[in-house]
């Protein structure tokens, strides 16, 4: 599964990368971010694009897996 590594980046970069992954038709992919609020923003973005997602935490980072 594709990973979109947006750790250490500031908003809106994680959203721009998520947008790109959706446009590329990446299928299911996981976005990694540093801050909890960035995860909330990625969740909102995925929802606004009609996507479902699963959120989690991994090794001290925050993840949103955007479903295909």
């Amino acid at each position, binding site marked *: 599964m594709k990973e979109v590594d947006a750790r250490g980046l*500031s*908003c*809106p*970069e994680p*959203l*721009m990368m998520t947008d790109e992954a959706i446009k590329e038709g990446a299928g299911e992919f996981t976005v990694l971010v540093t801050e909890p609020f*960035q995860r909330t923003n990625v969740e909102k973005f995925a929802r606004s694009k009609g996507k479902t997602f699963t959120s989690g935490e991994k090794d001290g980072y925050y993840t949103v897996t955007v479903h295909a």
Partner: protein
Amino acid sequence: MTQTVCLTKYSKNCGCAAKIGPGTLNNLLEKLPEFHDEHLMVGFDKSDDAAVYVARDDLAVIQTLDFFTPVVDDPYLFGRVAATNALSDVYAMGARPATALNIVVFPKDLPAEILGEILRGGADTVLEAGAVMAGGHSIQDDTPMYGLSVTGFAHPKEILTNAGALEGDVLLLTKQLGVGVVNTAVKGNMAGEEARKEVLRVMCSLNKNSAECMKAFEVHACTDVTGFSLMGHAREMALASGVSLRIQAHAVPLIEGAPEYARMGLIPGGAYRNREFCGEDVVLSQGISEEMNDLLFDPQTSGGLLFAVASKDAEAALSALQAANPDTKASIIGRAEALGDAHIYVDD
């Protein structure tokens, strides 16, 4: 050629969204020694917009400084926005700006013309304010920053603080909200043309005319709405005044597109910090949408003034504000009421 450099690429956070969170700041300030001077009318214990020192019975000196990293790519407009924002604190205290000093941080690998444009934007704004640019200080570093230190004057009786709001007062907000969210959308290349134009208009609109026209009315309190958001600054006013403020969410004016961008998650980290800091002292009714909730806590760069005025003057004051500032949307957004369990209540 100055247009080819994307200034916002040099900043992780932009404008007032880059403010250090109010929680962090208050914890640090509490540890500093306390200063006492009978002439200091407003110091930082009051969480107000600027310091006020009563130099003579008929003369108050207002001091403030404000600077930040680029909010827009165009250097001239960055200068204008930063200067408009810095001057706003003087207007929020009911005073007139007299002198301004430039605060500059600029990278050595950027063309000097860019800095020239930033300074020109600042100078034009100081000129528009009727103040004089009197000097400044510049430092070389990787992240560009710009702002002003401004000194203003007023009669001590003219000074407006955030502490005078009375039960029954009407709340007037002079600019629409959504600056932080729309700037984030602009940075992400997701903002529409109208939203781009409107956010620039809002940020470049000097609070001078609003402050001046309100002198004709019975104003009890004033603050400017910047990095701590409408909720954060309204709460400071309520705390300082010993009242609760009840705000009608539907009456709060918004920048075109802001709700859509908030729904998309284009929300500055500062908005989340502001909400956390206000905690249960801000009570939002169940009917408020998620995007409106986010916009109420959105950090504003060069935002409007929030006035508490006697209710008899509210309608006339609103008309005067609308006539004084056709570029922005002044609105009546709520009322002050007797202190309740929370300082801020927002109805849908």
